[in-house]
């Protein structure tokens, strides 16, 4: 999976998809995940990074992360390679 290269991401967490006109806002965690995806990290890498950084149960983190990844895919922000 890779981030849709055409989307514009601003530092304040605003995402604009120029192909559809859709726009989204991300919270800090969402922005962190998208930034890691943008830098080429895999989902496993991201899971590892977040687990190390936050005091969170691994199962809960995985569930939320998968939900977020599904949202990104559904909105054409994350594409299958």
């Amino acid at each position, binding site marked *: 999976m890779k981030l849709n290269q*055409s989307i*514009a991401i601003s530092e304040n967490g605003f995402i*604009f998809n*120029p*192909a*559809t*006109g*859709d726009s989204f806002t991300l919270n800090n965690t969402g922005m962190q995940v998208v930034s890691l995806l943008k830098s080429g990290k895999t989902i496993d890498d991201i899971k590892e990074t977040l687990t190390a950084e936050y005091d969170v149960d691994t199962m809960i983190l995985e569930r939320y992360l998968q939900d977020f990844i599904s949202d990104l895919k559904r909105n054409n922000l994350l594409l299958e390679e």
Partner: protein
Amino acid sequence: MECRKINVGITGLNNIDSPGPGMPVIRGIKESPCFDARIIGLAYDHLEPGIYMKEWVDKTYMIPYPSKGKDALFERIKEIHAREKLDLIIPNFDAELFSFIKLESQIDQLGIKTFLPTLEQFEERHKSNLPGYGKKYGVDVPKSEEAFSLNDLSNILRSFQFPVMVKGKYYDAYKAYSPEQAQAYFIKLSAKWGYPVIVQEFVDGTEVNVIALGDGKGNVISAVAMRKQYITDKGKAWGGVTISDVSMLELTHKIISQTKWRGGMELELIRTTDNKLYILEINPRIPAWVYLAVGAGQNLPEALVKLALGMEVKPYTSYEIGKMFIRYSWDMIVDIDMFSKLVTSGEL
């Protein structure tokens, strides 16, 4: 660059909640470095706001409603031309286009240019002809049928699933969830716009539009794709953003090159969740959101004026993505003397 002085007659000064395209067309022309334009407004109603916007419209004349016939319109144009020496006229309403297209050669003989679709182009893209249009040019359109009576409507509705779109001949569209609702809309629309009323399959998806200008030889001079961001209860975009959608622009090129479309047009499209583009309507004139195209780098009104005057026009090849328009309303304070002068003399 040499700045050419021109006198331009423009309709569609109704800058109201369901605005005509006149004012944004004027903005585009006034901002052009190629022209020093005197704008002659041609109005149907005394309260069209553009009449009173003197910084944009230099002079306005009332003209007869299309229902008065093309001869009455031609006589009025001759009177106005005798005083204003018009170089061209840009009509901006669907309902008046038939008369202007019919009068094109007569108006041309007066020395006034226009840049309009041919009668065939105008007729074949009518909402009521859309299924045939889709078949002829290989584009996807929703199922549509014409209703001339309530009896027709009942018969037609048997082959549709609810909700359906019920559309006026020229403007207005409603989503009906039952036969009773469809009948109520039929009566409302036929009273306002005449017959037929069009019943169209409801296609769910995202509303997207393209504004375009064809040179009449199959070339696209300008094309900008837009996604509506806010839609009013009248179905008009109150906010929109330019988008980079290759398939929408390819569809526009396909239609313009196949039909050799001449003049401004708007494609109203729906992108379904399975990413299919349906043409809902082809409007045969510049839409009211034209200034977004100007703001994104394609001065379509300027290009249309150049085409009409036989000047060389280079096709635009790109525009800025992510440019937005946000419409707003503004109360003007106008002296009653201006209104009374217009009402009594037919000009201001």
